[in-house]
């Protein structure tokens, strides 16, 4: 990828947010008028435990340059333990993706509670910067024509 193109490109980041915390955290960031980059596309899920690793890989395949999964802090899950199970799944997915050679900065995980509007905006800023620095996603992304 050309260096110039890398800088100009605005990455698309799919964000899976837990309805009970991070989604409300994003809302709080909004009502508090905290600025964060408009690169994320939010998908509301009932719990971070709802996020199947397939969702993340499919987002990358369908053209997302990055993925963010955000849920409740450990101990705060609305369903008591959903995020604990999610944490184990994500740990393995994260490790496997890096093992296969996918850049570590493509897929991000965060704990953001409903009262952490500031943290949410900070996380989105950091994630967007990281993904931007990597440039457009290539690995695992399906191209329309391989030789294009």
């Amino acid at each position, binding site marked *: 990828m050309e260096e110039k193109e890398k800088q100009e490109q605005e990455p698309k980041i799919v964000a899976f947010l837990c309805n009970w915390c991070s989604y409300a955290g994003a809302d709080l960031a909004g009502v508090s008028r905290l600025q964060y980059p408009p690169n994320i596309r939010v998908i509301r899920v009932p719990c971070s435990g709802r996020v199947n690793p397939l969702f993340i890989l499919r987002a990358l395949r369908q053209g997302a340059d990055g993925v963010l999964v955000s849920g409740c802090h450990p101990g705060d899950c609305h369903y008591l333990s959903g995020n604990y199970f999610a944490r184990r799944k994500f740990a393995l997915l994260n490790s496997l993706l890096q093992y296969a050679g996918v850049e570590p900065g493509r897929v991000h995980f965060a*704990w953001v509670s409903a009262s952490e509007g500031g943290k949410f905006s900070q996380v989105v800023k950091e994630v967007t910067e990281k993904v931007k620095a990597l440039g457009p996603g290539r690995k695992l992304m399906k191209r329309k024509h391989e030789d294009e």
Partner: protein
Amino acid sequence: MNDLIAAIRQTAKRLLEEKKVDIIIGFENGTYPLRSSPCFIRNPDEVERLTWNSSCENVLAQYLPGRKDRIGIVAKGCDSRAIVGLVQEKQIERDQVVILGVPCRGMIDRRKVEQILGGKEVLEAEEKDEEILLTGLDFKKALPRADLLHESCRVCQHRNPVVYDLLLGEKVPESENVDEYAEVREFEAKSAEQRWDYFTKEISKCIRCYGCRNACPFCYCRECFVDNAQPQWIGKTIDSTDTQLFHLIRALHLAGRCVDCGACERACPMGVNLRKLNKKLEKDVEEMFRYKAGLSLEELPPLATFKADDQQDFIR
């Protein structure tokens, strides 16, 4: 070896005659040398078909999920571990199976034999303790057993069955001083680009026949995510992305369950190194969650449970 075969036949006959089991799942001689195939016996008079040798590589536990009858099954180390996993996952009841445990010295990889012989056809194979005598039209060769083992057998740490109802034959010594994760460690040490290159190159061989999935004792889902049309998770093409996704998810689905029986790799017609991903997850699960699949009937599988202090340094 012959004593062992006799013991298997005798036990199978007794179990069938006493109506302790409805069916015996074991091995019979295949059509070619160095080939054995799974066999299913219901009639006590047919137990003479049963055999045991170094080509009994299939993982018979694969035939268990969903069965309603009582089964006697010939189980080597990896079979027994797979059975433990299937019982944990409630695919079969423990008291439904009579496990005829057979200590295993590792199975022979025919691809390695072919490579050494340069493709010459073996017409007869005879097993000695440490050697395999191979006879063809114009050659006679004795090859050391240790060089011919499947990779999964070479690094196997559980040659003796971990659970069994009847143990046939003498226990064999477990292999020592073998680092089962040596290959994973070596791969981890490479740069990300090198790993990606290897991964894409290796996976590009895949023709999506799903042989690996079908041979796996743990891939028993009635509807696999690759067959799902609504939603269609991944394309049904051999487009590189679809194939890569298939293999990543296949490996993830086996995390904490895979017992490294090597059935996937043996089933693969294209010689994809499938264990590379499986073994990595096996190592991760062991390091992160202190769990090794298929060893204890009481323990919960690692992804069906959690600890409050699980690793989370990767989460913001």
